[in-house]
């Protein structure tokens, strides 16, 4: 089945099994590999991306449901390498990543959280994101989200 959508601003059309999870379309068909596979069962958040602005676990979304929608992956979060999204800037400032594997999903979830709550409290962050990180970067993730909120506030 042919499905049309936009990904990172680019109109895209693919012809695949409509039941194919969006994660594999993004990674294997479109070769955007920042979005990761962790469980395939909506339990870890490694595959989080945005569908029409909503943070979504793409491993559990059939591609047919995104027809006509706007997808943003980590590759499309910032305009360029020089002009990173506040979340990415804060992630570097606070030195969040260790192995880095879970971070794409965390950053996409965090970017959405900041949109909803521009000045999140610790509890907003703790209860707002349920992704898994095995390296234990959690303390820095909380700091980085608050730092990103500051960067945002300075920019506006």
């Amino acid at each position, binding site marked *: 089945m042919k499905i049309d959508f936009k990904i990172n601003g680019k109109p895209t059309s693919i012809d695949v099994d409509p039941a194919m999870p969006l994660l594999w379309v993004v990674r294997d068909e479109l070769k955007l590999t920042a979005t990761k596979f962790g469980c395939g069962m909506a339990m870890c958040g490694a595959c989080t991306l945005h569908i029409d602005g909503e943070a979504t676990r793409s491993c559990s979304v059939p591609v047919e449901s995104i027809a006509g929608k706007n997808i943003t992956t980590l590759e499309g979060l910032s305009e360029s390498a020089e002009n990173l999204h506040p979340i990415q800037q804060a992630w570097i400032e606070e030195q969040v990543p*260790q192995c880095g594997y879970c971070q794409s999903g965390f950053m996409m979830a965090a970017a959405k959280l900041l949109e909803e709550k521009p000045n999140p409290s610790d509890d907003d962050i703790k209860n707002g994101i349920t992704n898994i990180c095995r390296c*234990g970067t959690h303390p820095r993730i909380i700091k980085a989200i608050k730092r990103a909120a500051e960067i945002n506030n300075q920019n506006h």
Partner: protein
Amino acid sequence: MSTEKKSFSRRKFLQRGAIVFGGTVVASYLGCSPLRRFTAQKAESMDLPAMMSSLQPDFWFEVLPDNTISLKSPKIEIGQGVFTGLAMLAAEELDVPYEQIKVEHANTKSGLIDEMNTGGSSSTASLYEPIREVAATMREMLKEAAAKKWGVKASEINTENGTLLSGNNKITYAEIAKENKNWDIPKTPKLRPKSAFKVVGKSVKRTDLKAKVMGTAKYTLDSELPDMLYAVLLQSPYLDGTIKTLDTKEAEKSTGVVKVVREGELVAVVAKTFYAADSAFKKINVEWNTPNKVQQADLIKFVTVGNGKEVNIQKEGNAKSIIEDNKATVFKQEYRTPMAAHAQMEVNAAIAHVEADKALIIAGTQGPKIVIDTVSKALNLDKDKIEVQTPLVGGGFGRKAVKGLYVEAALISKAVGKPVKLYNSRQQEFQNSLYRPNTHHVLQAKIGQNGEIEAITHDQATPDMLKNLMGTGLPNKILGADFISAGHGASLMYNFKNKSVSVWNAEVPIPIGIWRGVGMFPNAFAIESFMNELAHQTKKDPIAFRIGLLQNDDKISVRSKKVLETLIEKSGWKTPKAEGIGRGVAIGNDRKSIAATAIELAIVEEKIVVKKVTQVLDCGISINPEGIKQQMEGATMMGIGAALYEEATVKDGQIEQAYFSQYPMVSLTDVPEIQCFILEGDDIPYGVGEPPLAPIAPAIAGAVLDLTGKAIRSLPIKLS
């Protein structure tokens, strides 16, 4: 450090390593036989994992035309920040900003790979001297070349920012590397002393941050080869399960399937995409023979002090007879730690391309050498025909040391004649894996009239973790017990007059693996919980109690005492506790590092809530303090999860946890206030990644004891 030791290290690091100028190898050394080095180092230490990973560190330095330096690392970046540490060490002697040193994994084609594994927290530490020596040698060679060109003495040349300077003369490393043709290898220059360090010891940013926040960092799953197919491998969800009946007819007809490979127990669906392979895989009908019927209760029984063979590993005075003579009055407690999974976020994965006379394997592994050995054997192909490339590794914690999917990927690739990418589902990762074994500990103490501990014994029962790591039962045969556990934390560090420690070798029908901290995790839980109970029993402050037993003047005692004194101060140990707060402490020494933790917690609605964690670590010299803190925080979070939630169990020969939902781990909601302090207690760097994890569980248990008066003796901690 003696000069003899130095020359040994110099020989060792230039073994198969090389310095490359202008695209040509200008310095390389051949050294003594691996066997001799192995023996020499074995004699030096019983610390096998660390020893293995410091074996034969080969690397490759190259000045590139843009005046950056390429450094091919024999150590694997598993998230611990080793690339950054190595860049800093090289920068220290090369006078180049550390960011200009581009560190990448060596691949085996150039013959530059660590003989053994990356693990044991020793990656940066083991290369502390060698890498600086090669960098200094390289700097001197560049200076000699410039000296010849300018007709000055090398000693009149300064190096700065990748440039050689003398009077008005100025040339970059890249320029001189390109134009000079004859290179002399000087004697190893004297290394700069710690007092002159400009880079090492400063907190710097990891070099991999940008790639990791932009999503350009490449892991095995992100790697590709032209014309590559995808495979899904049939794996038994039962321990030791074999195929009883198999029907692949529907799978073969499924869209996009190229072939269903069946060679004995090896069954895999190969298709044009992962989705096609996975969809077809779900149409396979299989029944399993399940010869292994092990139950959780069996595991507990197998791993019990008194079963199996006892090996005494520490004996001072006559503890055993004192305990025996006072049977009726000794204070005796038993502790248990559970089986656990690694649950690293990146599942095991491999890409293989096998051709008639060569093979390429791409695999995120902690042990490239093991990949070569096992693939060579499986394909019956010479080892030097196998190239291994290691992308970044999405977490290992010991799981990526052995038993990846590279052998299977290679066999499948051979069967279909194309490159193949293979990875586990999360369920396969959980159920067809290697596990941290459960352990059992018995501790006994004879408490004197005055509250003094007159004698103490520790008996640990544990399966053999080395079996899978070495692929042989050899260590067991030599030493009679699991000396990984024995060498990591089973011994008693305190100055008891009479002490005795034994390890009981348990056999379990479970595939056992190394898990972050190895033996230190279970041993610290048991010993330090017992220490907390002894302090409680004798009405002493648990830190003062420990300090009282660290009065000897050996290095470990002196450093441990200082770590605890720092912990008292930094954690506010002596300040009044808030209402409803319990405080606990624990300390451990491993990899020559000493880590101590103080915990404050509350119990809210029957649930433990860790409020504050203070970590003090003495890891010798610190190379990148911020990187060390990152590791300490990570270890803290993993330690909290291991203390409160994590447990793998077996039922009817099957690991019961197949999904993340069945294997709870820490999440953002568990984050306490964490403070990390680093002490420098020695002149060389020691391990960082593992030591701070082990004290967390016993410190939490100690805080529960403090708050409720109830002792916790098994993990994960359950309050009711």
